[in-house]
């Protein structure tokens, strides 16, 4: 009986559809599983073994050393928190991912509110707002690095010295603390357009009668914003946070492959 129903299933429309579905998804699934999911779990295996960069071609012969790598990382002076003067990579990563994400979302929210108004040339301005996100990371990084050049010929130094905020040229990217702040600002500069697009799509999906009804009921502009505009975006904010908060700690894990 089972055999007959199996043959029926194989030749039925439903069965054919399932096989078609799998054969359509298979190439994508193979590439993603083989090159992302498997290496991700493989990295856990490596983290318990003594793998040097030179032995990468025959990793499977590596010796099992238990938690040795983890001990090394935790005791590493560059990783450990060593007082307020020297945070170490662990604390820096957490602070970095949290503040950079917050700033990105806030800037994206402001940008999307600006673009949610009606004005001439809105399409063009929206396109320009997306430039930081689409431009190649290598080129924008080098431009920013050069704008922040420590010599007096650096643009930021020149401007700040001209308006009298600083006396001497500053080495922005080699000053502890300031460098981290600038990297956070750069991150927000680069990724706010993405947050902006997501928020904007939701803002434009809000039914305008919702605002009108609230206005009739006597709600002020601020009430409209906190009670309608923000709640619509809450889950987006959460999503952005969780994905970025997960990125931070996982970057630390890479240091465990000694």
């Amino acid at each position, binding site marked *: 009986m089972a055999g007959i129903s199996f043959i029926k299933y194989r030749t039925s429309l439903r069965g054919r559809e*399932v096989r*078609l579905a799998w054969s359509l*998804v298979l190439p*994508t699934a193979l590439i993603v599983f083989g090159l992302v999911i498997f290496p991700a779990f493989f990295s856990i295996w490596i983290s318990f073994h003594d793998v040097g960069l030179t032995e990468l071609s025959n990793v499977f012969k590596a010796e099992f050393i238990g938690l040795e790598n983890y001990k090394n990382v935790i005791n590493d002076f560059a990783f450990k928190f060593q007082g307020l003067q020297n945070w170490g990579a662990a604390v820096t990563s957490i602070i970095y991912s949290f503040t950079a994400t917050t700033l990105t979302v806030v800037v994206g929210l402001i940008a999307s509110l600006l673009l949610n108004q*009606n004005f001439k040339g809105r399409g063009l301005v929206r396109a320009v*707002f997306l430039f930081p996100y689409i431009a190649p*990371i290598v080129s924008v990084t*080098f431009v920013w690095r050069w704008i922040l050049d420590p010599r007096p*010929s650096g643009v930021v130094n020149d401007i700040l010295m001209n308006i009298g905020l600083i006396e001497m040229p500053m080495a922005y990217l080699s000053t502890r603390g300031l460098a981290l702040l600038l990297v956070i600002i750069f991150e927000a500069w680069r990724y706010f357009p993405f947050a902006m697009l997501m928020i904007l*799509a939701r803002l434009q999906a809000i039914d305008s009668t919702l605002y009108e009804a609230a206005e009739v009921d006597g709600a002020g502009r601020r009430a409209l914003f906190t009670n309608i505009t923000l709640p619509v975006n809450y889950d987006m904010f959460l999503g952005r946070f969780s994905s970025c908060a997960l990125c931070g700690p996982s970057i630390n894990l890479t240091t465990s492959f000694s």
Partner: protein
Amino acid sequence: MSSTTSTPGPHTSSSRNLTFIEHLARWITWPRFISALAFTFFLTGILFPFYWMISSSFKTYAEIGGRQPVYIPGSLNLDAYRELFDPSNPSFQNFGQSIMNSVKIAVPTSIIAVILSTLGAYAVARLRFRGKEFLLNSILMIYLFPGVLLIIPLFAMLSQIGTRLGFEVQDNLPILIITYLAQTLPVALYMLANYFRTIPEEIEQAGLIDGCSRMEVIWRITLPLAIPALVSVSIYTFMIAWNEFLYAFIFLNDHNLFTMPIKINTIFNDPSPRPHVVMAASTIMTLPIVVMFLALEKFLSEGLTAGGVKG
């Protein structure tokens, strides 16, 4: 941005007698002033780095190395570009080769990604099969792993396979293309599946009843309706492959195979710093992306948000 037209005020009849300043004084209110200020802040912050990149690429070595920054180059000086492209230049960089390498990687990545993700997305959006949700969620798990985390196990794994099957992992462009596919396919699949869901299923069912096979339905009905999404997926994947640095940096050793980002990094780390050459190379790498984006901007933002806002 003259927004006067958007607000037909009560003063339109007498506006003929008003000067520009009076117009401005009437138009401006606190919210408008603040939003104009914010726009100025955003536009300068966004556009200045790009202006600096393009203008610097036309500066001479003296303008670059001076004590004061030069905000507007004296003339359209092509020294930096000559260094990139002119073989007779003493510090010729052979940048044309790097452009070709980037094209050779980005174009196949984008074409293959569109084909594979179309097939996968159609199955996810239209067909019912067991394990679909699990499959979709695990494909999206890629977001949780940054590239830095994956590169060591990926390299170890590929070199294992490489020694068994007899191919080189380093300096092998197809390998690089496959790793880019792994990075772009999940998002491409997600974007396309969301778009396919917005196409009414009845149209396809009509096709099926008329005797088309599933593949014919995809080819003749679904794809023509999904052109905006296909365009945005192909730009998106092209952009990722064109801009990618980390994997190319690890997987490529041969100077003749360097893609543009790696080449720019090499020029930047040259013992004699020549920022104008770096800026010229960056301009060349950025320009096609920005032009392509401006031409197809409407599709791209639509596609990106279709991927981000789950229905």
